[in-house]
């Protein structure tokens, strides 16, 4: 937790701000309900799915 009396003001970068409206806050809210381990496991499951899709694409001749 930041100490509001001593912490430096957070730098607001307009380029970063431009990306924020595109974020899916619902997904982030769900993620924050999980433990760190559960978050990493969710990412690994998704990674597995992505890899399976890549392999399927290769098998179908859609990818080199």
């Amino acid at each position, binding site marked *: 937790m930041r100490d509001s009396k001593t912490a430096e003001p957070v730098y607001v970068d307009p380029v970063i701000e431009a990306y924020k409206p595109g974020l899916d806050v619902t997904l982030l809210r769900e993620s924050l309900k999980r433990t760190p381990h559960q978050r*990493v496991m969710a990412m690994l499951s998704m990674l597995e799915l*992505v890899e399976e899709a890549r392999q399927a694409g290769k098998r179908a001749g859609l990818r080199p």
Partner: protein
Amino acid sequence: MDLGRLLAELQRAKVEFIIVGGVAANVHGSVRVTVDFDVVYRRTPENMTRLVEALASHEPYLRGAPAGLPFRFDLRTLSHGLNFTLSTALGDIDLLGEITGGGGYDRLVSRSTEVELFGLPCLCLDLDKLIDVKRAAGRPKDLEAIAELEKLRTMKG
């Protein structure tokens, strides 16, 4: 990527390391998928020896390099280099002696937090520092990731 095995091997050999990069972002709540595992390792001879012991039997090789190079993952190689992007039989791992905007293990350890992954206690870069180092890296591909991390920081209060 067999992250559980990678972590278990590093822990078994008592390697001192801090999780950074995409996996650290996931620890803090990011929902982005990452294909490699980035760690900052402590650059003492003892710790680098432990790192070699942890990974040497898992076919470490320079990721993306042509096959057949005389690469040896040993203390000499680690001592003469700094950052290594490796493929291993357990998945890709980036071994970083230092990171832009953050320095090495000894500087970052006070900016890390202990989390439990796969039942193992691990040090992970804290959210504020993770944002700082991603900003410092200045890579266009990180812009959306930084936005997400900042949003998470706001949501966590």
